[in-house]
């Protein structure tokens, strides 16, 4: 019987079975940011411990950093304090830090792959749930809490229970205007936000095989929204082509040895899975959320659901979601007015996301009254976008072109919703209050749908706004 990539990597990283039955797992790469690490460094100090493997630890600043005026001291003294705490901690422990002036700063899940830090076969941990993003490379990558950040700093290991593996095959071909974001929103709607509890998700099938690395990252990123702590794709030629020549990737003869090793890590054809799900990619439409978790979604050309259509046990939760979102059952989603359009985040803030939108946005203008911003995922993305003229396309269209960070995905910096503003957002979470206002409303969508909605002033089907063909009413 063959093995899955999950089993192979798990076994290769098992330090030992702990007395309580958990596994002590070695971590190849530890990524650190300013929000979930200061307490961990403090705990380390309290116990008089050092960082065990500083050369496997890389830090950047992303969550709290402003995307407009970044001159220091930052206007928010708490943000400045967190930035300084991180600088002090990395200096004390000899950890590589991609600071604001490094030219390499960005969202931790954007810069890891971009720098070649993220590699197939690695175990990757970070105090951030969207660490699942790195699974796109055929790595076991997962979010951890701050006490576990301490564990990784002190021992380069964590104590974990093994997960089951569910293979999700998306076959067929996506229709024009349908993107990776729509695929993962569709998967989450189908399997539920609790569907992945206890599982790692292995994504496969024709649609996934054809995807670029950046598209795969969008999907792996939101595994955690589907309840799966880990999501991954098997490494293939697309993976290797992406990594080749990147700063921290293997070079020369080491590269060839690495590729051979990576190929052997992919799940065997006769591997057994705890569960298998098959989906038709051709049936997926541009998708938006209407509720307060990422599983509450519908095709953008459809309608807000009627709670009466759901089982009695689910009605109260759906009514609560619609009341928070101020939406009516049966209302066409295209009637939903948009106040803010946010393009960015570790889900959809990469160069290919911006390229795709810019290609279609040319000649369009953001609707008057809509506040639209683009926040590139990293300084490298921002530079490339400037060079390619993409930034200018956004500016011409009426988008604000900002500096890199997490920004309005979770609004720990000054970018946030005001009152009950509604944002159409390329980020990953539409929880109540997520974008910085306790009554703010979030509609998750693909970058194309965000741009189409910004242009229309209401939720809009990118196939119609950008004339992509293939649009038809869902009902």
């Amino acid at each position: 019987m063959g093995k899955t990539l999950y089993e192979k990597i798990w076994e290769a990283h098992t330090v030992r079975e702990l007395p309580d039955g958990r596994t002590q797992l070695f971590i190849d790469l530890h990524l650190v940011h300013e929000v979930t690490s200061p307490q961990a460094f403090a705990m380390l100090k309290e116990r008089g411990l050092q960082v065990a493997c500083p050369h496997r630890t890389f830090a950047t600043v992303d969550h709290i950093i402003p995307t407009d005026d970044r001159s220091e001291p930052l206007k928010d003294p708490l943000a400045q304090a967190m930035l300084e705490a991180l600088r002090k901690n990395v200096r004390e422990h000899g950890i590589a830090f991609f600071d604001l002036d490094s030219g390499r700063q960005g969202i931790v899940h954007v810069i890891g792959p971009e720098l070649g830090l993220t590699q197939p076969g690695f175990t990757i941990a970070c105090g951030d749930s969207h660490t699942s993003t790195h699974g796109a490379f055929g790595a076991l990558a997962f979010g951890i809490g701050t006490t576990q950040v301490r564990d990784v700093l002190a021992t380069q290991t964590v104590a974990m229970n093994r997960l089951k593996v569910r293979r999700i095959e998306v076959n067929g071909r996506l229709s024009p205007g349908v993107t990776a974001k729509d695929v993962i929103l569709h998967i989450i709607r189908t399997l539920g936000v609790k569907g992945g509890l206890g599982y790692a998700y292995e994504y496969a099938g024709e649609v996934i095989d054809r995807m670029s690395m950046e598209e795969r990252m969008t999907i792996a990123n939101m595994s955690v929204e589907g309840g799966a702590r880990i999501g991954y794709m098997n490494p293939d030629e697309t993976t290797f082509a992406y990594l080749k020549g990147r700063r921290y990737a293997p070079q020369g003869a080491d590269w060839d040895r690495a590729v051979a090793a990576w190929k052997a890590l992919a799940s065997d054809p006769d591997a057994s899975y705890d569960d298998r799900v098959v989906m038709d990619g051709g049936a997926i439409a541009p998708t938006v959320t209407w509720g307060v978790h990422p599983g509450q979604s519908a095709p953008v050309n459809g309608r807000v659901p009627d709670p009466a259509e759901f089982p009695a046990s689910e009605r109260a939760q759906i009514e609560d979601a619609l009341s928070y979102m101020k939406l009516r059952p049966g209302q066409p989603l295209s009637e939903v007015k948009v106040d803010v359009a946010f393009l960015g985040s570790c889900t959809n803030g990469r160069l290919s996301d911006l390229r795709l939108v810019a290609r279609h946005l040319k000649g369009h203008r953001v609707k008057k009254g809509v506040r639209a911003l683009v926040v590139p995922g990293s300084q490298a993305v921002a530079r490339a976008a400037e060079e390619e003229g993409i930034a200018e396309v956004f500016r011409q269209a009426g988008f604000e072109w900002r500096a890199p960070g997490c920004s309005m995905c979770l609004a720990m910096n000054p970018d946030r919703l005001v009152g009950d503003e509604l944002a159409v957002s390329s980020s990953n979470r539409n929880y109540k209050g997520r974008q910085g206002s306790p009554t703010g409303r979030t509609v998750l969508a693909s970058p194309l749908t965000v741009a189409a909605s910004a242009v229309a002033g209401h939720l809009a089907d990118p196939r119609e706004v950008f004339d992509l063909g293939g649009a038809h009413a869902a009902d």
Partner: protein
Amino acid sequence: MPPIKRIRGRGLPLPGDDIDTDRIVPARFLKTVTFEGLGNALFYDERFDEQGRPKDHPLNDPRYRGARFLIVNAGFGTGSSREHAPQAIKRAGFAAIVGESFAEIFFGNATQIGLVCVTAAPEDIAHLMETVQKAPETELELDLTALELRYAGRAVPVSLPSTVREAFLEGRYDPLEVLLEAMDRIRELDRTRAGPGKPGVY
């Protein structure tokens, strides 16, 4: 780290599925370099309106003051990995959470800081919530050895992974000391395994 075998106290019902960690601790309270004082941030935006006036919420209800058990439904703690969420719950005085199911990262974070999360059948949770809503003074007793929750003359089976139960019973839920025992093997893996910019075994 003392073993955790038995927890006694009153309960606080918090109904609803998929309660995410952004609701448990809104992101603006994460702008801190310590966990101190986080108990006050617990469900802040659900407890207070934008002027800071208390809203109708179980955590503002004096009948539940001093409760040690949080009683929840399914998918509790979904979303962000912020340990601030279980830290806030613990710092607000809770010792255990009884629910239908928990998000993976939240569960792990809670375990490591000795906040016990156990699951029970949906019908048992419904009965427990109703009992406590009607009679907030009801005393609950969670017995991790017997894997039972006892209250009002009932004994309800609860579960948690055997590894985690062991860790609580033996006072080893914070694994750092045990992890440190393997430093020799860890050094060897660090030497042989590939890393960023470092050739080696994959």
